[in-house]
Structures are given as C-alpha cells and as structure tokens.
C-alpha cells in the first residue's frame, strides 16, 4: 500500500515516562488533512517532535513517502525533505523584518549555496505572493517582533508555505487567537488544501476549529496517553465511548499511571 506517512510501533521515553506508547498511524497519499486531537499530555506534540527529527524514539519506524525514514536525520535534513513544522508558540525571527523572515525561508539552505544570492526575482515573487496570501504584505518592512500574536502565527505559516512543503505540520495554529483571527486562519488552511499540493497535519484543542476544518470529512485521530485511541470522521470519533471517557472521565476512570 502507498503511504504518505507510515508510523509503526513508535515508543518515546523521557526518563522512563512513556510519552508515546506503541503508536501506529498511517496517512494515505490521497489524504489532504489529518487532525490530531487529544487531552493534554496525549503525545501529540511529541509525535511532531519525532516526525521532524527533534526527538529520537526509543523504538518504532517512521517512513515518509513509503521509503524515507524520518528516524535518524536531524531537523534540517527532514525540513529539506519537505516536512515542515509550525510551532505551538509562534516562532519567527523577531529582529528581522517580515520580508527578511521570508527571504530566510526560500531558496537554498545548504551552506555553500546559501552563500550566493540574496534577491532572486523568482524568490521575490514567491515571497510577495505568500505574504499576500496571509495578508502581511503591507507589513513587509516591519520587524517581525512588532507583529501581533496572530500576525506572527500567519508569518510563520507563510514562511512554511513559501517552501511548498509536502507535509505541513501545524501545532495548534489558532492558539491564543481572537475569533476573527481564527476564522481567517481556517480560511487560510482551506486555501492551502484547495490551491497547493501540501498535506496538512494539524493538532488542535479548539473543538470549534476542529469541527470547522473536519467538516469536509477529513479524518480525525484521537491520541490518548501516547497511543491512538480512535480514528475516523469527526462524528464517528465523537460518538466513540472510549473517546468520551478519555475526555470526560479523566481522573475517575483513568487507567493506572505508567510507573516512572
């Protein structure tokens, strides 16, 4: 079977605490959006850490596009493969202008090649259109540190979009946003799905936002205590008694904690 992402039996241990326990996950090539939900500490961000080479799992396999292992290479190499990540708290270069943030995102990243050019016309167009898309073009000359929280989130998104990632990992893209900002972000993500070839994997706590994104029948994966609890369309997952228990019954029906 063809897979975009194949995660098998993934185990991540932090000093004995199992952040991921035998997690299995498959994203098919035809899937454009995959939503990851789950209570705090379910291992969602840890999964992203593994996918981007930030954390090395103690066991398990991660294959990107059938054959490329994502276990072993560092974050820079994995980013070079087209797996890009937006962090939970906006992560941009505050001392650089918005435009410079974008310039850093396009073009060659390898040391020898990055040395050469600064302003290529094709890059200029790509940067301008990505900024246009997120509505930051008028602020291109402003230092990124002066942007509002939501604007920083969009800038970071534009920095990834301009590189046309194969797999875009979004960690809580609407955290801390106002309602209109959330709406705009949802539109942005829908535009990504419609107009680009990028696959989006999205962690979100905001259920309203999840419903908004998942309404087109995208699959939702529920993580709980480091493994997959349920998977499927949103309605099906929401009706799953195990999911209800995991969300509502925490503390009362909780399984015995993993010994440290």
């Amino acid at each position, binding site marked *: 079977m063809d897979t975009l992402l194949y995660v098998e039996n993934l185990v991540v241990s932090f000093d004995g605490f199992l952040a991921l326990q035998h997690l299995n996950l498959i994203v098919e090539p035809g899937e454009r959006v995959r939503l990851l939900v789950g209570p705090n500490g379910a291992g969602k961000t840890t999964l992203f850490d593994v996918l*981007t080479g*930030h954390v090395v799992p103690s066991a398990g396999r991660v294959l990107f596009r059938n054959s490329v292992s994502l276990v072993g290479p*560092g*974050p*820079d190499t994995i*980013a*070079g493969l087209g797996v*890009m*990540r937006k*962090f939970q708290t906006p*992560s*941009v*270069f*505050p*001392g*650089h202008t918005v435009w*410079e943030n974008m*310039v*850093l*995102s396009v*073009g060659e*990243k*390898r*040391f020898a090649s*990055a*040395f050469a*050019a*600064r302003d290529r016309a094709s890059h200029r167009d790509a940067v301008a259109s990505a900024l246009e898309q997120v509505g930051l073009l008028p*602020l291109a000359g*402003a*230092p990124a*540190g*002066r*942007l*509002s929280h939501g*604007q920083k989130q969009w800038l970071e998104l534009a*920095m990834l979009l301009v*590189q046309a990632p194969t797999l875009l990992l979004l960690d809580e893209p609407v955290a801390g946003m106002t309602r209109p900002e959330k709406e705009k972000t949802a539109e942005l993500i829908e535009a990504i799905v419609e107009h680009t070839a990028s696959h989006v994997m999205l962690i979100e706590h905001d259920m309203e936002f999840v419903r908004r994104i998942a309404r087109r029948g995208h699959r939702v994966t529920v993580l709980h205590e480091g493994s997959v609890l349920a998977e499927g369309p949103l309605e099906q997952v929401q009706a799953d008694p195990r999911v209800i228990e995991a969300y509502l019954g925490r503390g009362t029906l909780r399984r015995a904690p993993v010994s440290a």
Partner: protein
Amino acid sequence: MTRRDADLIALGVFGAIFLVGLPLANGLGLVSDYYLNLFGKYLALAILALGMDLVWGYAGILSLCQAIFFGIGAYSIGMFMMLEGAGRGIYGERVPDFMVWNQINQLPLFWKPYEHFVFALASSLLLPAALALGIGLVTFRRRLRGTYFAILTQAIAFAAWLILNRNEMKLGGTNGLTDFKSLLGFSLSDPRTLRVLYLATATLLVLAFLGSRWLVRSKTGLILKAVRDNERRLEFLGYHGASYKMFVFAVSAALAGLAGLLYAPQVGIITPSQVGVLPSLEAVIWVAFGGRGTLWGAVLGAISVNWLRSVLTATYPSLWPIILGGLFAGVILLFPEGLVGLARRLWALASCRRALAPTAVSGAPVEERTG
C-alpha cells in the same frame, strides 16, 4: 538619509581621518611618529574587534578565546621576524637570542618554515581559522552553546596562556618574542617602516570592514542573525546551524590572526599576557562599549577604549582595570546598545523633533527594537 548612506559617509569620514589625515599630519610634523604608531596599534585591534563582533554581535556566539587567534597571528609574524634578525643579535648566533639563553643551539623543527614570509602569513591567517573550525566541530555539532561554549573557550584560552608561558615551548616563555630588528629587510627602528605599517593596517581595517559589511548584509548575514535570535526555527527551516556557526567563528579567528599579524611588528613585542583570558575578555568589552551587532560599534569601541587605556595608564596605571570594569558595567546598565546605539537614539530623537511622523506598525505594540 538612509542608514546605508550614513554608513558610507561614516566610512568616508573614517578613511579621510585615518588613511589620509593622520599620515598627512604626521608628514607635516603635527602628529609625532609615536602617536601614529599608537594609532596603528589601535587600528590593528579594531580588526580583532570586528571579528569579535561578527561572531558575538551578529551570530550571538560568545567566544572567549579570540586572543588565542590574535596570538597565533602575532607569534607567527614574530617568529618570522626573529629568524630574519637571527645572527644580528648580541650573541651573533644563528638562532634567536632567547634560545641562546636557554641553551638551544639548534633551531627547533617547527620554527624552520617560519623563515619564509609566505608561510608566516598563511600561518597567521589560516591556522587561527583552522583551530576555530576544530573547536567548532567538537562544540557546535554537539549542540554545545551559550554559556557552556563561553566557558569552554575561556578554559581553552587559559590553557593556551599556561602552555605559552613554559620555556619548553621554545616560544620565549613569559618574555614572549621581542627585539624584532626588521621586517622583509626594512628596519623597524626606521619611522618610515612604521608609517608603511600604519598605512597597511588602516587599509586592511577598511577592507576588513567592507568585507564584514558585505557579509552581514548578505543572506548569510541574515542567517547568522537568525542563529543568534532563534536557532531552532532556523534548523526547522532546513538550515544546518552548526555549519554557519563554524564559518563565522573561522572568519572571526582569521580576522583576529590578521590583527595579531599587524600588531606584533608595530608594537615590537608579543607575550603570553596578550594571549590569555583577560585580553579575550577585553575584546568583548570593546565591542559592548562601541555597540554590539554594529560594525561601527566594534571599530569605535576598540579605538576609543584603547585610546582611553593609553591616556589613563600613563597617569593612573593601577586604576585601569577598575575603570575598564566600570565602563563595562556602565554600558550594560545605562546604554546596552553601546556608543552606536546611543548615537542612533540621539539621532532618532533629533529627527523626531523635526518631523513628528509616527513610524509604528498600526495595531501592533510599540517596543524598542533590541539587538
């Protein structure tokens, strides 16, 4: 006036003063040979400061071993000059005088290549760069950074100082290398030779400045500042941060070596005391005083602090360390962006008075940009 224009005008003024004005005044007898030589030393140290600024001010890597690189440059050219002068010393031996005192009659093997000027040149520029690459390889690639890197480099500087102090190193021990007679046949006691050395130093400083300016304005410069501000984001964008850090560290080391190369013949002596922990820290203070992360800050900081040092050590020699420490503390507390930051702030205030145009981004919190 844009910042770019201001930069080039400043460079023009700088060149007019140090490349034309000072030598001309010296030729007319208005500035003594002693002062010209003194400024030659400051300008050499400004090249060291430029390197310090590139690695610390721009890339945020606090290297506390820049004086080693400086020392390699100075000792390299020093060895060449010692060998050129060998045979003309008080003992008339074929080896430098200090070796005669230490009963070394045979020139040590590692001294041999320093008979050649080209080798000494290469050694003073490339050896520091290679050493920096080596240090970078074992630190940056293992993600050793921040304070840990600073402490490690300080330990290396201390070790280098200890080693150089030993007579067994055959580099003159605590006395270092001194009593240079000539450089490429030109007597170092001739003021004309020193004038040429001054001009060479001033020219190379301008070239080093232009090169550094090009670097920090290039895409690589953007990447270096990104390493300083958010290395994690940079790596997740696909950059191998360690490569860029090694590169800028090597460039800074080569600049420090160049500074040492120009320093030794003008000052006439190089000792281990210029290669240890303290001189490395002093370079940090020059850059902080002048304005970290601005090339002008590095140059002005090095010249002004060293000038102040010359003036004050002549009158109150024992007070100098206290004054230097006070300067550093004062800069950190009162104007953390240094002289250049202070000048910019005053300039902004002045232009604000002239045209009350709001420049803040609409809807965004207005805060002073730092760094």
